[in-house]
């Protein structure tokens, strides 16, 4: 456990760099070098001053000169906001100075194997604790309707993250168009239920099958592509689906979407606020309450998410899952060993897409309304961010990242337009500070002898 568990800069990951970077992460030369002679405070001040200069040049035109449409509806005019610029520049200066001083003055990092072992021991209890919390959450006294809705939202993203994790984390196929399968699932349920009157429980598997079918359809042409090319083709595919949804008005209702999608029932018992005969509250002799449906939806998505997790964990131990992970590490070696690369990739796409389809059907039934607006590229980016920020391939990491990102995103609802800015900034910051994600160590699926967690640096994800 000692050396392998925590270091961020493993030899394998640095291999393709080769050139020693003169400016480390912060850009401040550490150790012997021309700048080492300078006292740290002066160096940090100089650096912060430069950063402030750059910031001033960036912010003066963009923030300082705000263009506004004139009151009479005429041309644009400029409103100056020098105070905002000054605040921003001062902020940059202060932050840079703090970072500079911290990097220069902090004690040399010492390896603390005890801490890593402790983290590992605590880590064992995190997942069961989270699970128990998720199970009892609706019954907790402080849980409000808003909290339940937020829980449903977070769990939807947990499920999407776990679904995408099969494609990206296990099989190493970078998919930027995952939202397309989500959309296929949502529209499949919306159309099947409104046109043919099928119930949610019939449509759920159908939505999954349809999404899986689309996954295979997309998978076939892109089998030969690798890495970034694959990413961009899947992105294009996602956009094509969205444009089709917008423009095929006769089928999808175009930009207006489909409304009046039926809600799910509990073994045939509906959730009506009035609580008439044959409803859930009537059957169980409960006081009719709109909360019942929300709680039911909460447990439904929890069950779906856990199903995704269970399938993933089981598959990882089977030949198929091992083939995925082998494919992620080295495609050529896989071919040489006689693994059918085509089938392996297609199953990854299909199974990942299937869970996306399930989540989509759930989304449609929860909202009772779908429109192309819900399936933009940014949605794909958020799901991918959850997977990567959580630590590729780590089930717990994906769940944690979904809670942090989506929960945090909702917590700053009052900030309105600023929160997306913060969201993007957090994505960059987590990548820069922890490129391997929040949970960067993982247990190998198959091991000789004792199972040991290895650092994420030693796993070559994202090469495929």
């Amino acid at each position, binding site marked *: 456990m000692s050396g392998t568990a925590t270091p961020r800069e493993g030899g394998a*990951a640095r291999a*393709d*760099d*080769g*050139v020693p*970077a003169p*400016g480390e992460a912060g850009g401040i030369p550490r150790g012997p070098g021309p700048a080492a002679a300078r006292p740290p405070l002066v160096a940090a001040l100089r650096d912060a001053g430069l950063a402030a200069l*750059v910031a001033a*040049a*960036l912010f003066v*035109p*963009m*923030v300082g*000169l*705000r*263009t506004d*449409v004139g009151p009479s509806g005429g*041309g*644009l*005019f400029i409103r100056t906001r020098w105070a905002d610029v000054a605040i921003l520049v001062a902020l940059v200066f202060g932050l840079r100075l703090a970072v500079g001083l911290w990097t220069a003055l902090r004690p040399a990092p010492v390896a603390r194997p005890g801490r890593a072992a402790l983290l590992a021991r605590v880590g064992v209890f995190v997942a069961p604790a989270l699970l128990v919390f998720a199970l009892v959450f609706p019954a907790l006294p402080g849980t409000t309707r808003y909290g339940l809705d937020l829980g449903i939202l977070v769990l939807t993203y947990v499920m999407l993250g776990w679904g995408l994790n099969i494609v990206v984390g296990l099989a190493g196929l*970078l998919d930027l168009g995952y939202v397309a399968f989500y959309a296929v699932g949502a529209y499949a349920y919306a159309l099947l239920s409104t046109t043919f009157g099928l119930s949610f429980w019939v449509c759920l598997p159908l939505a999954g099958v349809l999404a899986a079918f689309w996954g295979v359809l997309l998978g076939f*042409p*892109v089998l*030969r*592509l690798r*890495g*970034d*090319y694959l*990413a*961009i*083709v899947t992105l*294009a*595919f996602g956009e094509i689906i969205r*444009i*089709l949804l*917008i*423009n095929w008005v006769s089928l999808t209702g175009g930009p207006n979407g489909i409304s009046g999608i039926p809600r799910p029932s509990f073994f045939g018992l509906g959730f009506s606020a009035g609580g008439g005969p044959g409803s859930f509250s009537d059957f169980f002799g409960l006081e009719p309450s709109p909360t019942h449906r929300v709680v039911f939806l909460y447990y439904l998505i929890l069950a779906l998410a856990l199903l995704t997790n269970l399938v993933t964990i089981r598959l990882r131990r089977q030949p198929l899952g091992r083939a995925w992970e082998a494919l992620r590490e080295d495609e*050529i070696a896989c071919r040489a060993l006689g693994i059918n690369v085509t089938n392996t990739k297609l199953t990854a796409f299909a199974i990942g897409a299937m869970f996306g389809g399930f989540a989509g059907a759930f989304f449609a039934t929860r909202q009772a309304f779908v429109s192309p607006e819900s399936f933009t*590229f*940014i949605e794909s*980016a958020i799901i991918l*961010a959850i997977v*990567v920020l959580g630590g590729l391939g780590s089930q717990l990491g994906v769940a944690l990242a979904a809670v942090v990102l989506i929960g945090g995103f909702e917590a700053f609802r009052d900030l309105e*337009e*600023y929160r*997306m*800015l913060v*969201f*993007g*900034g*957090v*994505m*960059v910051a987590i*990548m*820069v500070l922890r*490129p391997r994600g929040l949970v960067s160590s993982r247990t190998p699926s198959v091991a000789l002898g004792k199972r040991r967690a290895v650092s994420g*640096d030693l796993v070559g*994800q*994202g*090469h495929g």
Partner: protein
Amino acid sequence: MAYALQQLINGVALGMIYGLIAVGYTMVYGIIGMINFAHGDIFMVGAFISLIAFVLIGMGDWGTGPGVILLVLLVSMAVTSLYGWSVERVAYRPLRGSFRLAPLISAIGMSIVLQNFVQVAQGARAKPIEPVVTGGFEVWHGNGFAVSVSTMQAVIVAVTLAVLAGFTWLVTRTPLGRAMRACEQDRKMAGLLGVNTDRTISVTFVIGAALASVAGTMYLLRYGVAHFSDGFLVGVKAFTAAVFGGIGSLPGAVLGGLLIGLIETFWSAYFSVQYKDVATFSILVLTLVVMPTGLLGRTEVEKV
């Protein structure tokens, strides 16, 4: 025939803009092997800087003319380059040598940051400006359909060609260009031979951003409006152009941009406007599936 000729002219003007952005994608991909996802948004920032410059000049009543456009272009190039440099410094450089997905995610994050930064700083409404270049001339008159080239289109083509000529000179004839090409071929070896690779990569981003800002200015002049979300779609199309022409190849990027511009214009003119983006994306998928190296790209030999 006249109609087709008109579409050809429109397509070339649009394709030039795509080509300029595509060069930025292809350069960055060639040198550090990553898709600079924020490049489309750098283009949008460039458009906004020129918008602000145009409004400032309009308020100062300094008149209009080729001098003003040149001045705006220079200001926009300077500021946008700084944006490109900062993005590389903040979001990509710390991740150099990290695994492949890390810079991509960082770039997506940066793209979100830039879009929303501009939205917060400049407002969510689309910003229109008065047409700066007006007029045009008729080239040909046939079958009752006049083929005309607007002065605007002529300016776009002329400026783009001039900028590309300067850029080609920079890459092929200067020590800086030599360093860039060396880094593209083998970064480790170039570093060992005394090329400052970090600086060269920075310069690559700066040049890419400057070209994107020229494209942004031209886009603003052509359509007369700037919006904070303009960058994404144009960026993806420009990336398509880069892939179509063969990623890593500079002439390929321009060629790909021209072709994408032409295809989009002709598709809109003869088939349907709604599905023009589907046409572009289908080309992207088809190119990658049928000939992943693009039109002018070299084949990558994989060694084990």
